[in-house]
Structures are given as C-alpha cells and as structure tokens.
C-alpha cells in the first residue's frame, strides 16, 4: 500500500512535469519574441558556446536578419531550422534532432535512468526477504529495543 502510494505519486508528478515541459509557450506572437526564440535554438557557428540570439558577431546578426526575413515570408519554425541545418550542418541546432546520431544524446540519459531504476529495484527486491517480519503492533517496542542496542543513550545521534 505504501509502496503503491509512493509509486503512484512519483508517476503523477513525473507525468505532470513532462506535460508541463512539453506544453507550448503561448506568448510567441510578437515578431521579436519568435525571432529570438528561433535564434536561441541555433548555435552561432563562429562564436564559442553562444547562441545566435546572444552573439554580437556579424554572422549572428546576419542570421538574425535572415530569420526575420523568413518569418516575414511566412516560413514555419521547422523550415527555418531546416534552412540553417542545410547550410551549416545539423550541428547548429541547439535542440538536437531526435534522429540519427543526435538521437544518442537523448537516449543516453534515458538508458542511464532506466539502468538506475533497475539497479535500485534489484537491490530493494533482493533485500526484501531479509527484512524482519513483525506484526505492526509489536513494532514500536522492538524498534525501541533495537535503538537502545544500536545507539546506547548518550551516543551521538543525528
């Protein structure tokens, strides 16, 4: 019961988190907001570690102008990203595409997290049978007794 409650709580919170994060921002109406959002997803090719939005390099300024132009022409975000990816390579996209080699960056954490959950699960399950089985009503006395044995009065406790 406790276990189930904890699992349900975790799942609910996880899905809430995912739902929220994947929800679209809704204030991309203004041209500038959209331009800077797109520019922020492109790595400035000539700067180090800055996005096209942050950089003041001439190339980045040109790229911002191109973004504005494309938005004016009615291009979608995807078309703009594709345009720059075709020009400068897929490496320019700060949000790595979920395909090809770049898929690896997404899979890594997922695999690691799954392995972690599995390892913790194995540890918990393997140890479970060893746990002292007592009825709940005798538990307080027993624990008090164990506490006394493990932490004699006066011993440091935290």
């Amino acid at each position: 019961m406790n276990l189930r409650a904890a699992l349900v709580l975790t799942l609910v919170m996880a899905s809430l988190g995912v739902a929220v994060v994947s929800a679209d921002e809704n204030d991309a109406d203004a041209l500038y907001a959209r331009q800077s959002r797109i520019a922020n997803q492109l790595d400035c090719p000539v700067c180090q570690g800055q996005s096209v939005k942050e950089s003041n390099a001439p190339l980045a300024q040109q790229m911002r102008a191109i973004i504005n132009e494309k938005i004016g022409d009615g291009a979608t975000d995807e078309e703009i990203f594709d345009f720059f990816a075709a020009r400068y390579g897929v490496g320019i996209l700060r949000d790595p595409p979920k395909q090809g080699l770049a898929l690896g960056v997404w899979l890594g954490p997922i695999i690691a997290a799954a392995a972690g959950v599995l390892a913790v699960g194995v540890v918990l399950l393997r140890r479970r049978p060893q746990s002292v089985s007592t009825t709940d009503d005798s538990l307080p006395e027993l624990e008090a007794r164990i506490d006394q044995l493990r932490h004699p009065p006066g011993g440091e406790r935290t």
Partner: protein
Amino acid sequence: MQATPVIDLVVVGRMALGLAFGVAVLQLSMSGLAVWRRSPGFTDAARNAAVVLAAVVTLAVAALAAGFLTQDFSLAFVADTSSRSMPLGLTISALWGGQEGSLLFWAWGLSLFSALAAWRMSTRDDALAPWGIGTLAAVALFFIGVLVFVSSPFQRLVVAPVDGRGLNPLLWDSGMQVHPPMLLTGYMSFTIPFAFAAAMLAAGRISQDWLREMRNWMLAAWAIQGAGLLLGAWWAYRVLGWGGYWGWDPVENVALLPWLAATAYIHSALAQERRGQLRAWSVGLVLLGFALAVFGTFVVRSGILTSVHSFALSDVGPIFLTFVGIVMVIAVLAFLYRLPLLRAPLPIESLASKEAGVLLNNLLLMAVLVAVLWGTVFPIFSELVQGVRIAVGPPFYAQVTVPLLLIMLGLLGIGPLLAWRRTTARAAWRATRWPILVTVAVSAVLLAVGMRAGLAVLGFGLAALVGAGALLELARSVRARTPSSPSEPRIALSLVGSRRRLGSHVVHFSVAVFAIGIVGSASFGQESAARLAPGESATVDGHTVTFRGLRPVSQPGLTTVYADLDVERGDQPPARLTPSRRIHVGWENQPTSDVAIRTTFPGLDDLYVLLDDWEPDGSAASFRILVNPLVPLLWVGGALYFIGVLVLAWPAATRQPAQAPAPAGHPVTP
C-alpha cells in the same frame, strides 16, 4: 617606473616549486615506508612533509603575487594577464587569470588543506593515516609536477615588455576576485574526502571516525563548490549580458557535476550514519566527486569543449585526462575489490521511509548528473564518431532536467517528514498533511488569480511544499530541543545533531526560495529590443525607458560609452540607469557590456538593460530591455543556503559529557 628587482622572482618561484616537488616526493615515500614498516615515526615524517609542502607552495604563490604587485613584466605570466592600466584589486586576481596561475592556486589550496587533513589523519588512526597522507601526496605531486615541468608560472621573457597584455575584458569585474578562486578551491577540496576514502579502500578497514571526518570534509567541498556556482551565476547575470544566470555552458556544467555528486553524498551519508545503509554507494560518490572535480579542472583548462570560457586554451589537456583515467581505474578496482567490506548490514525495509527517500533522491541526482555529463561530452563524442559536432544546448538540458528537478522538489517536500525505517500511511499523512494542504492552497490561489502557465503553477506549488515542510520541521526541531521530562531520550540528542538538522532545514528552505526565483524568471520573463533616438521611449512590462543620450568617457587603455536612460514605472520613484560598453585598448574586437539592473519592490522584478550598439554620431542606440521577475530571490536563496551550510557544518563547541571523549568536530570554514 619599475625599480630593478632586488630579488629575482623567477629564481625564487622556480626554487620554491622545485623544492615543493621534492617535498611531495618525500611525503609520498614516507607514507609508503609508514605503510610498509608499520611505524608511526614515518607517518609523522609524512605529516610534517605535508606541512612543509604548504609553506613552500605558499612561498611560490607569494613570489608570483610579488611579480604582479611590482609589475614585473619579465615574468611571462604577469605580462600575459596584467597590465599597468588595471586597478590593484584586479591585478591581484590576475593571479588566477590564466592557466599556470590557476593551477598554482589549485596546488596552493590543496597544500593548505592537505596539511590540515594530514594533521588530523595522523592523530586519528595509525593504520589508515599513511594511506591517506600518501594519497594527498600523490595528488599534490601530480599538480606540482605539471607546474614544474609542463606549465610553469615562472617563465622568463627575454625582453620584458613595457606593458602587459592585460586580462580579457570579460574578466574586468569584481566578480573575478571571488568566483574563480572559490570554484578552484571547490574543485581542489574534493581531494581531501577522496584521500580519506582511498585510505579506507587501500587499508581494507572501515573506521566510523574516518567516515565522520570524511563527511565533514565533503561537506566543506560541497559548500565551497556551491558558493562558487552561485557566484558564477551572479557574475554571469551581471556581466555576460544575455539576461540569464545559467546558460548550460560546458564550463558551468562541469562545475555543477561534482556539486551534484556531493549533494547525493550528503544525503546518502545520512542513511549510512543513521542506518548503516548505502555505505558502498556513499564511498563511491566520494570517488566520483573527486574524479568529476579533476575532470572539471581539466575541461576548464584544456579547451576541449568550446565555450565562452575557452580563453583558457592549453596543452595540459592530455596530461589531465591521463591522470583522471589512472585515478579512476585504480579507484574503481579498489572499490570493487573492497565491496564486500562495504556491504550494508541492514536492509531498506519500506519504500515509505526516509532511507528510501534518500535512495530516490540519489537516483534523481544521478539522473541529472548523467544527463548533464552526457550532454556536455556528446559534442566531442559525435565529432569523434561522425566528424560532426552536434550542438547540445539549453533546450536539451531544460527538457531533460526540468521534470527530474520537479520530481526532486516534490520528494524534498515529503521525504524529510517521513520516519526512518518505515512509515504507516496514517503516520505519513499526519506528517505531511500541512505542507500538502499549503501546496494545494497555493496552487489553487495561483490558478484563481489567473496564472495559466502550468510549469509556474506546478513549480510554485512544489516550492511551497518544500518551504512549508522545511518551516514545519524547523519548528519541530526547535521544540524537540526543549525536553518535556528529564528522562526523555531526546536529551541524548547531542547539540551537533540538532544543529545539523536545523541547518538542513534552512538549506531545504533555501531550495524553495531558489526554486521560486528560477520558476518565476523562466516563466514570466519579458524581453524586447528597442532602437531609440535621444528623447524617445520604449515601454516593457510597465517600465518606461527614455533614452537621454550617449556619454563616452576615455581613460588610459579604456574607453567607456555610457547610455543615460530615465526609467519610470507608475508607483516607483523615477531612476537613472546607465548601461555601458567598454572598449579596451588591444581588445577592440571584444567590446564588453556593463548591464544596468534595477530591482523594483515589492514585485522583485529586475529591469535589466543592455546597450547593444549605437550610431557613431550618437543619433540612435539599440538596447535590449529585459524584465526578469524574481531573480533577486536567487541571491536571497544563495545567502540562505550559505547560512544553512554554516549552521550544519559549524564545529561543535560543546559536547555531551556522557559521550566518549571523541575529538571535537574540525573547523569547516569555506
């Protein structure tokens, strides 16, 4: 201006470093002899060597500092990182403004910490001490070896230039005086707990006393690294001028990694201490923390990951990588070999218990750590595999870490309220009902007043959960210190115990404050760009910004262009903001901006104005104007974090008389 030096600093510095190398070798060999001969005399000799080492490295640092103070540009490092036009405070901080100096600073900090740690080791455990002191010697030997043979801060220029090149303009800031030394000290300090862990693995003996000592040093490393990260965020916000405080830049990421490992350790060590659980895991985290700290130093200094910080290009990269590799292989082998020793005597009984919460906390922290590490190294990996450098930017990190961090917030609200061992559903509900009700109430109110950003409602709600839980626990632990009857076993709680609990609640509360700042600034920030002629205004989120004109100011070596802006917002008194751009002689292609920030109360919005560009005749200027809500809470949260850490890590002044005569906790002064 420069007098003929009475003392040749190059000679002094080189001699000091050469001597340091010899002393480190001595410390290592004495430790070896102490292990081999089992003789405490050799242990004492090794300890004394550690103290001498600290003195000698201090001398080398003093020589370099003297070079900066006397503007001795015959020293290549001084000529490279300082110039006559730099103010004194900045000149001192140029000591860590380049690779050689920052490695020297690293080694200096290590030698000081090592001397203290070696002293404490030698008074504690005869069998473990030589291993620990030897490990410290080995790490010191590596760094001093790099300083002597590869990257010496005492290179002489045949012809001393009239003036030095000066620091990169980005570093011309008071933040330079605090952020880099704090972070370098943080990285360095992970060595000490590592030495304690390595000694236990090597000697094959677990000592409760050493585990405690290791925990204290790890707490220190965690606190210092945390302070370094906070100062970095504060600096980035004020100086880098993109309006944010955290950019998932590779150098930021690698500094975060050891801190995450240390955070996981702090919690798992609690389960280890209280219940004997997660012991192997805790030791593993100490090893991991050190490896990540050296990796971080390597990344900052190697330029392998291009980032805004990569003005630190160098040739020490491969050496560092080899060192990390060797340390890791030895550590992992020793760890696996000693694994039976580290097995937990007691199982985790229930998922609804504090120790299960700790386990889950560690799992989440590790997930964040792996994701950040993987994202940071993936560009190199993709370049090696396919020759294409895949960029991994903030969108990746946000998508991966935000859900994890939200779950962690929820867990942080509930976990500390659960009991050790197991909690029945009723007891769990009784313990957590008030924070949960507060959370529901906060979320309902936010929805009712029309907040529609789901992430913000969830984030604020969970922050309320954490904050309410921490306050509740704070109240409880204060009450618990007043015993209701003399025979209450609560009296047995030592002051240390309560203080640590007290500190942890303060730190948890600071996380809540921090979370509100992050969620607020990430969800409700507004940004706009404006090109204004003198007299024209722009309005962003109620703030009216009027451009009054440009004001260039020339100083030797530096031209600063100020833009005068009048700012008004309904109820607030009008104010003047002067964002500026600095153009340094010799760095003309890198104009550096000084952001103007105005915090408005009570909403805690930061109006953040950046001067982008201007017409040479002053007829117009472009600005970026941002409104960053709740960012000041980050600094409040940072201060609270620090207060909490001090409370929980401060050495015990008084001890229970009933207790065995254990040595008092050692000072952890970040």
